[in-house]
């Protein structure tokens, strides 16, 4: 999903960088406001974990692979804005490994960090509202939202490609192909996200931001009651 240099022209890349900058500024403000002290090290760990899992490409269809984006996973663990910051850190480090273009960093932050963590989390919240207040609901909603977030991310690329693609190819074909293959990758994203959230809910439910609404004892200890992490 990482856009390399050259796919999208300079103007649209610059525009995306501005959107990314604006989004990250909001993310920093929201994180400053809402992130609890005990979540600081967890946030670093979430970023490190996403970096690691993004290295594990899984095969999807013939001759194609995909990997976790992790936006919804991060958002459900530490909140959408801190989650977006997490994935952005991952993308910046990956650019040093020549994974994802330097001029495309803004595009990649928009598609892979903001659209998934903030947009995907919004879907998670809506789904959660229609499900019973249980751990299983949190797991199910995070998995479904994660899967959908990958397709949203692919659609965002097609939008940028329509505005600033440098090759004269059929947009309709690109849209169909991107949504098609990323629906399959989204299934992987959903499964990995659901499994990870389920695991964390099992051992440290108090660390799951997206489960903070659950009745005390079922998933959460009172906020601030846990000092070690």
């Amino acid at each position: 999903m990482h856009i390399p240099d050259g796919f999208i022209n300079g103007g649209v890349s610059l525009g995306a960088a501005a959107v990314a900058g604006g989004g990250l500024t909001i993310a920093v403000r929201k994180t400053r406001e809402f992130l609890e002290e005990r979540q600081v090290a967890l946030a670093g760990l979430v970023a490190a974990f996403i970096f690691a899992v993004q290295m594990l490409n899984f095969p999807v269809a013939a001759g194609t692979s995909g990997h976790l984006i992790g936006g919804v996973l991060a958002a459900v663990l530490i909140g959408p804005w801190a989650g977006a910051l997490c994935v952005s850190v991952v993308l910046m480090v990956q650019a040093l490994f020549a994974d994802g273009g330097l001029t495309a960093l803004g595009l990649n932050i928009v598609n892979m960090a903001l659209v998934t963590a903030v947009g995907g989390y919004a879907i998670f919240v809506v789904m959660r509202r229609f499900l019973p207040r249980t751990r299983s609901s949190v797991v199910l909603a995070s998995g479904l939202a994660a899967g959908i977030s990958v397709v949203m991310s692919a659609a965002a690329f097609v939008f940028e490609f329509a505005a600033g693609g440098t090759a004269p190819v059929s947009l309709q074909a690109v849209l169909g192909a991107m949504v098609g293959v990323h629906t399959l990758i989204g299934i992987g994203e959903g499964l990995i996200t659901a499994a990870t959230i389920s695991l964390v809910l099992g051992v440290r439910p108090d660390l799951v931001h997206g489960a903070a609404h659950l009745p005390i004892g079922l998933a959460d200890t009172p906020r601030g009651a846990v000092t070690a992490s």
Partner: protein
Amino acid sequence: MVAGLAVAIGLAMIAGPWASSEPDGLTKVAEDQGFASTEKEHALEDGPVAGYEVEGVGNEGMSKALSGLLGVGVTFIVGAGLFAVVRGRSRREAGGET
């Protein structure tokens, strides 16, 4: 916390041989739809860790594992550092621009 970091490092270090080396979704679509050729060379293509391989390490598996360890370590330090700085400012009610 330590266990989590160990899991992340472990995953990154074994990723090389386990990960699929097929092109990812976007790369594949670019090839099929005929815009893969518009890709420009990455400015850090000749960098010391380009393509998740550490320059100067002959063994490919070792090179990939090392880059995984390096990437996870850097990401953790940068991430935790960033969040600590962001959090720290709120305590002083700095309110300044980022």
